[in-house]
């Protein structure tokens, strides 16, 4: 009788063992790659989340009319030009009257942001009636105070090896004890542009720069890429030239991105004289880079449309163009869009070509269009990672979090879009 159960057979045992081994290897590979991913995300999140918190110091400010507007004209020019920093300083001295000597006074002034005067100015410009009164105002803490308040300063180090000395730490502790320090969500980080001061630097400028760059990139590369793919796949004769073009498109997809940057520098900036550091040029360079990706993905999705659909359309007397645009292209559209979004995600993370065309500049103002000088998210990360101030470390991680968030959103939308359009029937 045939025995299908006993496993004493040497070959059978070996076969089972090898199958089990293979599964174990596969599972191990997945565990290892997941572990790396978790490690990366965790370390970035740990490093970056403090950047979304910031501290303000509440000071009683006397809006002295003699300092702000001695003539009492309330003219805008006068209010703009007044020395508000003086108000901050005198308020600080009122809080800590026993501080004496120029050096200690300077130290005291350094616990609030150098931007504090502008914050008061904006307050006064918004509400001139405040002049002559005294009120509690929340002022941004300096980057070094911020670090101490977040617990990054080790008090056991000798004074000369840390950014804040014992006096400053003592003042901050006093303010904390008096309830004059509060922490809140850092909306400024999301809404403002870059700055030399870590406590004032924001991501919005880079976000807008990336957005404008991607818009230019998409507007250029999607129509050109899909039309090229449609022509090559549906119309072009299968000739030697066509094969040569195909090989070269594949090669182009493998060209290092910095080469495209050099091309942009040499041709777009130097020959055509387009404005340097702008999303317009950045988008054009990135479009060159994403074109091969879009063409390859679009051709693949056109090829996946069954030939029977083309025959059906031709059979009822549709012309070649009608067949292509009424039937083939709509069916290939989900694949084309997916390719485009993946190309855009690649472009979003690209740094090297943007360095070449000058989008690496330090730009404080938020860009308002594609011809304004701007920087982009990955370049901003590069810039902040390069800055010596301790406060930029968490900003760098926070910017990476933003970049990864947008990448995930884009890739997710590619998946969702494809699923939605494919299940239409």
């Amino acid at each position, binding site marked *: 009788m045939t025995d299908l159960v006993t496993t004493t057979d040497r070959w059978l045992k070996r076969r089972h063992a090898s199958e089990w081994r293979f599964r174990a290897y596969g599972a191990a590979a997945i565990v290892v790659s997941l572990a790396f991913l978790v490690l990366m995300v965790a370390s970035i999140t740990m490093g970056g989340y403090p950047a979304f918190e910031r501290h303000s110091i509440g000071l009683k400010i006397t809006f002295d009319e003699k300092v702000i507007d001695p003539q009492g004209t309330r003219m805008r020019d006068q209010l703009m030009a007044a020395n508000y920093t003086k108000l901050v300083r005198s308020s600080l001295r009122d809080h800590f009257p026993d501080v004496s000597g120029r050096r200690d006074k300077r130290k005291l002034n350094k616990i609030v942001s150098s931007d504090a005067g502008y914050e008061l100015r904006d307050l006064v410009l918004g509400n001139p009636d405040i002049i002559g009164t005294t009120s509690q105002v929340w002022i941004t803490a300096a980057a070094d105070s911020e670090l101490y308040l977040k617990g990054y300063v080790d008090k056991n180090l000798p004074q000369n090896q840390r950014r804040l000395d014992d006096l400053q730490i003592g003042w901050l502790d006093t303010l904390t004890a008096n309830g004059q320090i509060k922490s809140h969500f850092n909306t400024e980080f999301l809404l403002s542009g870059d700055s030399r001061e870590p406590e004032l630097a924001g991501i919005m400028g880079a976000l807008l720069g990336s957005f404008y760059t991607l818009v230019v990139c998409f507007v250029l590369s999607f129509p050109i890429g899909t039309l090229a793919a449609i022509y090559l796949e549906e119309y072009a*004769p*299968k000739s030697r030239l066509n094969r040569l073009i195909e090989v070269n498109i594949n090669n182009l997809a493998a060209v290092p991105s910095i080469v495209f940057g050099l091309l942009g520098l040499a041709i777009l900036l130097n020959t055509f004289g387009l404005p340097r550091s702008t999303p317009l040029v950045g988008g054009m360079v990135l479009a060159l880079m994403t074109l091969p990706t879009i063409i390859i993905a679009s051709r693949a999705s056109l090829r996946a449309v*069954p030939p*029977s*659909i*083309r*025959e*059906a*359309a*031709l*059979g*009822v*007397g*549709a*012309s070649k163009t*009608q067949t292509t645009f*009424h*039937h083939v292209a709509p*069916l290939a559209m989900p694949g084309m869009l997916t390719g485009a979004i993946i190309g855009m995600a690649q472009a979003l993370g690209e740094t090297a070509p943007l360095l070449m065309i000058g989008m690496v500049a330090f730009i404080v103002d938020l860009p308002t269009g594609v011809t304004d000088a701007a920087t982009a998210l990955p370049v901003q990360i590069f810039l902040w990672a390069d800055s010596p101030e301790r406060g930029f470390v968490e900003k760098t991680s926070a910017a990476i979090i933003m970049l990864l968030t947008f990448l995930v959103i884009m890739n997710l939308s590619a998946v969702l879009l494809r699923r939605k359009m494919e299940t*239409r*029937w």
Partner: protein
Amino acid sequence: MNMQVSVSETMVSIPSPDIDTKISSRDVNVFYGDKQALKDVSLDIPEKQVTALIGPSGCGKSTFLRCLNRMNDVIDICRVTGSIKLEDQDIYAPEVDVVRLRAHVGMVFQKPNPFPKSIFENVAYGPKIHGLAKSKSDLEGIVESSLKRASLWDEVSDRLDEPGTGLSGGQQQRLCIARAIAVEPQVVLMDEPCSALDPIATARIEELLDELREKYTIVIVTHSMQQAARVSQKTAFFHLGELVEKGETQKIFTAPGDERTSNYVTGRIG
């Protein structure tokens, strides 16, 4: 060699006087690259009859069918010589617009291939691109009458908005027939329309062919000799790219003039 002679003798069969020739082909040769797929095929297709093209796989019957509405144009390496005339007009003449030709010579394919659109859109597409309907109600009329002629109307009249791809295989093939006849062709070419269908769906299509030939000239390629015998009035037997024998279906099946035909219809070669 002497078989060739006997073929050309049977070829001069004079069509009965009350039947007009719809398509006449003379000395048609088709090459795929260096390979010759059809050799000197001369065949007349009579109007408003069903002509069956039979023969073993790779004999060129589908190739010949696809020459009749120039579907072979799509294939880059395909070359056609000789003449094919649709009512005295050479369809391979350079001035012929292939799109208009295909509106006159419709086609139904081996595998049902409805567009991934609604049933209505499937039928309405042809009339739309050829501008056959002047208004929306006009178009709805065309769709309804086409579906009725394809005997599909009763099954789908209440769900015209549903996808054509959701129908059963037999229904899909009838939808394709409705789509083909919606543009009012003179000739309908069918390339093994039942090979992907079960026997019941096949029987329905065969019944349909009988009704359709009152209005259209039909050329059908089939693998099944029983089907050819059931549905066709004329039969042409192809073998290795040659047209071996043609004539009345009954004669081909009962008294074939060529040894190869007799071997094929009796199942000795296939």
